[in-house]
């Protein structure tokens, strides 16, 4: 039996998930396209007035990021569940929490991270200032991992159920509202001439809190769903 350190195990899981995802690139791309489309819909709905768009921008981008992350959640465990790999993972002597953390990390790298990196381009559609764009990216980088982490709990609880993505969203979205508030709030603070530090610090705190607890809780959720 190969002895794996914590990081060795994480690296293994992440690399595997990334490899599998790269073979089905469309899944990742559809999430991104959805994100871009939703953001673009808002000006079409509310009109092109620049002042209003600038005010709405961070909120719109954040809501779209939330929705796009939710959409890709079922994929976190469903493929492995379908072919029996998940069962093997649960029987393995390695800690299930670490395995789950690896899956969360991979999920974030395939959804949250790309979203955070594309966001500046979308922000330009809303005529956001350079400073605001910076803060937006930073906030998204801090907040989207939390979305993946809380989402993992939802995905684990709804494993194998019909209703898939919608049910997970229903369960997870209310729990993500604090991230939304402080994430969008960070940009608004900067727009209002204040510092975004407190917002970003809170986002960081959420991330650390979630990092400590969610892998364990999601692992328990998996055990509940699989027994």
């Amino acid at each position: 039996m190969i002895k794996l350190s914590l990081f060795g195990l994480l690296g293994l899981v992440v690399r595997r998930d990334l490899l599998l995802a790269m073979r089905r690139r469309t899944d990742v791309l559809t999430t991104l396209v959805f994100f871009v489309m939703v953001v673009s819909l808002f000006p079409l709905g509310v009109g092109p007035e620049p002042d209003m768009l600038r005010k709405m921008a961070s909120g719109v981008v954040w809501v779209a990021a939330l929705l796009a992350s939710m959409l890709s959640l079922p994929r976190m465990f469903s493929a492995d569940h379908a072919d029996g790999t998940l069962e093997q993972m649960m029987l393995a002597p390695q800690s299930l929490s670490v395995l789950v953390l690896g899956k969360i990390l991979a999920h974030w790298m395939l959804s949250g991270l790309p979203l955070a990196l594309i966001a500046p381009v979308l922000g330009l559609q809303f005529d956001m200032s350079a400073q605001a764009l910076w803060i937006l990216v930073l906030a998204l980088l801090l907040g989207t991992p939390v979305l993946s982490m809380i989402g993992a709990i939802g995905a684990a609880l709804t494993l194998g159920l019909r209703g898939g993505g919608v049910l997970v969203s229903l369960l997870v979205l209310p729990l993500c509202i604090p991230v939304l508030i402080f994430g969008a709030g960070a940009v608004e603070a900067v727009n209002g001439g204040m510092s975004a530090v407190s917002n970003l610090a809170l986002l960081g705190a959420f991330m650390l809190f979630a990092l400590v607890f969610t892998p364990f809780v999601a692992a328990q959720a998996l055990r509940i769903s699989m027994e």
Partner: protein
Amino acid sequence: MAINWFKYSAPSTFYGLAGKLIPFFAWPAAILFAIGLYIGFFVAPTDAVQSEAYRIIFIHVPASILSMFIYLIMAGYAALGLIFNTRLSSMMAQALAPTGALFAFISLWTGALWGKPMWGAWWVWDARLTSELILLFLYLGFIALQASIEDTRRADKAAALLAIVGSVNVPIIYFSVKWWNTLHQGATIKMTGTSMHVAMQQAMFIVLVACWLYVIAVALARVRSIILERERNTQWVNELKEVRS
């Protein structure tokens, strides 16, 4: 005479007990409700600023308080069911959920009807009302998750985990919304003008207790049906008087 309380943790024995207890909660609830509203409408004076519209608080505030209280109790029962594997605990959680959701709805509805004459809008993004809306979503999520899972044990445990995560989140959500509300200078629904007259406090408290008794009565009644549904294949259920008749 030592009562073996633990025998009531079995659904079969609790079924009978619950049935006997219901009237002891339902009737006092109705009476206290009437008394509380009487005091609220006929003893409490008209408010200087809000005139007669403020009288909505006698149902709005108890409903809000209870919706949050019920969520915690529901999560508590669900957690007991998850940790100790006691079926009855999970059944109680399932029984409480719809009532809690309805109280959240009443809180939102009455809050809107209070907000309209006071602040001119049907919906005011007040920190408490917004948190109440999110609480309603949490309730609906709990109910939806339980309804979507066929296997009863898995449904109970999954919903329990969700309720526990929700409970941890509720203070975080409330704090976040409060901060968001002050930043955007939203309205705060408060009793302005005169400080709370004694009769107002009395009325609110009495209605609160009345609603609490109502919740217990309804939960006991609902859990009886849940017990029957889940235990339908057992002998004791089929020997019940109401099934034999």
